[in-house]
């Protein structure tokens, strides 16, 4: 038995890329082994935040990077190109950096990949850049042999400067938890597309650049916005657990307040998948001081990408690191998902 486990640990498993505990453990055990020490005022790799932040005299330089392996590459509501721009723009925004200085794009293609598909992906990246007010300033292209990689993999890196950064660990008891719109859309749209479920007409990915939306929230809330995270792999549940754990608070989540579309709810019921546990690509979770929750909510709802924003819970001193779910019928702890139920979601 022991040797079996030892052997298993010699190989990477899909779970280690699912965004949950197993992935964090892999990063800690391997990538953080020789990670540099950074000054307490900087955000480095050990923070495992949405990006790094370096103090450059009078402002913060924020850097983040994201690779995209989604399958299928074209899905209802978007494609891998749009995803690759939005993923990085949104990670910058989650650090408080909503004005993108530049993006890079690294593309790895499989021999035989249709040129028309590549052009379609490129056009979609360009459109997403226009929406985000971002520019791809440099890039890299590699081609691998047939079967050595599946279709296309895109990596983007983003840089931005900002006067103030927002972390994922700033929650205090009493703070309100806001979400910028409905949850579960991206994950269930991909799942429906992949399994050819006849529900897909109702299910669309929410993939969108939300730096403009976050800018509006930060303008309304200022320093009262104390924490942000985008609920990608592992969904709202993973994001809340990570924020609660890093901040040392409990989060009381009101399930009936969480916006979920009818299509997502119905598909989740049919597939036995909780919309709280699946990926979003155009949403954010914000922790806001109670007195600013109203104005921030109003600012979010005034933006086209935030019209379904809602206050979904509050932070409590009890049960630090846990999420207490009020179902409307009773209460229980929300289990921290092992990560995304589906591989290659983003």
């Amino acid at each position: 038995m022991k040797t079996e486990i030892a052997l298993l640990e010699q190989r990477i498993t899909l779970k280690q890329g699912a965004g949950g505990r197993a992935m964090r453990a892999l990063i800690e055990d391997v990538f953080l082994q020789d990670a540099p020490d950074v000054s307490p005022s900087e955000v480095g790799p050990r923070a495992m935040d949405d990006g790094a932040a370096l103090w450059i005299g009078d402002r913060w330089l924020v850097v983040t990077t994201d690779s995209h392996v989604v399958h299928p590459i074209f899905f209802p509501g978007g494609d891998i190109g749009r995803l690759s721009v939005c993923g990085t723009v949104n990670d910058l925004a989650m650090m408080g950096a909503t004005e993108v200085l530049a993006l890079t794009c690294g593309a790895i293609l499989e021999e035989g990949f249709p040129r028309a598909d590549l052009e379609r992906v490129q056009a979609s990246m360009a459109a997403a850049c226009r929406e985000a007010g971002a520019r791809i300033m440099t890039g890299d292209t590699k081609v691998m042999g047939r079967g050595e990689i599946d279709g296309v993999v895109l990596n983007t890196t983003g840089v931005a400067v900002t006067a103030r950064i927002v972390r994922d660990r700033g929650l205090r008891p009493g703070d309100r938890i806001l979400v910028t719109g409905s949850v579960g859309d991206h994950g269930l749209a991909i799942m429906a597309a992949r399994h050819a479920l006849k529900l897909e007409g109702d299910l669309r990915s929410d993939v969108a650049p939300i730096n403009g939306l976050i800018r509006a929230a930060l303008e309304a809330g200022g320093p009262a916005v104390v924490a942000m995270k985008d609920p990608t792999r592992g969904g709202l549940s993973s994001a809340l657990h990570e924020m609660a754990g890093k901040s040392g608070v409990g989060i009381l989540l009101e399930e009936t307040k969480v916006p979920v579309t009818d299509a997502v709810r119905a598909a989740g019921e049919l597939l036995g998948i909780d919309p709280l546990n699946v990926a979003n690509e155009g949403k954010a979770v914000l922790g806001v001081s109670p007195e600013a929750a109203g104005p921030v909510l109003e600012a979010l709802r005034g933006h086209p990408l935030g019209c379904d924003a809602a206050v979904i819970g509050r932070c409590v001193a009890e049960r630090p690191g846990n999420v207490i779910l009020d179902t409307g019928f009773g209460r229980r702890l929300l289990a921290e998902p092992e990560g995304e139920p589906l591989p290659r979601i983003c």
Partner: protein
Amino acid sequence: MDSLSLDAARETRLTAAIRQLKFRDPALARRLAETIARVTAEIGRSPVSVMHVCGSHEQAIAKFGLRATFPKDLNVIMGPGCPVCITDLPEVDEGVALARQGHVIASYGDMLKVRGTVHSLSDVQAEGAAIEVVYSATQAVELARRTDREVVFFATGFETTAVATAAVVRSGPPKNFSVLSAHKYIPPVMEIVAEMPETRVEGFLAAGHAATITGWGIFEPFVERHGIPVVVAGFEPLDILAGLARLVELVRDGKPAVVNMFPRCVTKQGNQRAQEELWSVFRPVGGRWRGIAHIPNGNMRLREEWAHLDARRRFVIDLAALWDAAPPTLVADCICGDIMSGISSPADCKLFGRECVPDTPVGACMVSSEGSCKIWHQYGGHPDLGAS
């Protein structure tokens, strides 16, 4: 299918999903929870113990956090409601032995990680044995039609799934198809559990889907013999709360009776054609339920006229050959048996959520989606957060 009928199909599915949500009205749920609390207080004893015998009931209770709304004097015990969990060690061993003897074993996914005396199906699959996961008995027959090898359908489940097995047995399956039945019949185990001194069950919440087939009338002789009320309930949160409210009322009033709180699906007679087919294929025999006891008439085996489809008759199953290693040491600490009898809860187990998790389960209760441990783990661990 044209686009119009596709739209219509989608419409039906969505309407069905929304209709189901009507049984999820929190305001009504609060009123029912208040009734349960009031009636339990009126009984004036502590604890008042009632039992459900269905994993799907615990699923709904855990998912919606209903335990936090139960009064502390009401003990809602999880009974032997998981067919995978109560499949006995020698039954799993039979499946494992047939797989090692080179036959294809088709079974439901939950069975793969359940350990027999030493090995699980998943262990022998890793050695190269042919184990196929199926979602229905029909799929197992289709599998047999596609191959020349012997396909053994390792059939588990209560009377609900046994009906589907009976249907394929009667449908004239191919010659290379056979059934290894580990089907269990719920009514007899209620007789045993009702007499257990450790649990002192005062009322049963019976599973609505099983009663759809058996009818609620089947519980009348039980109620007469034991003087314990039975309420048949569905699986939405309001179904369960309404069922429990009625059950504690019957306990308070000292009225042993059967009450059907799932009338939208369950009748007194049940589905008679399904019952006829079921008992034309199976006969009840006594046997052990893992961790619980010997249950007279609790196991369902193929009748003599279907002997040609019975894997136990077709093959010589060599169980001794399996005992080539010692069982894993952690098994000694597993309290699945007590959990399934309703004597303990997962929170009483020192392995729960530590050494024993869904990825590396020690006991069957952490394997099956109907198992109490798996359910509690899926919905956040210990479910009783209190009402604060």
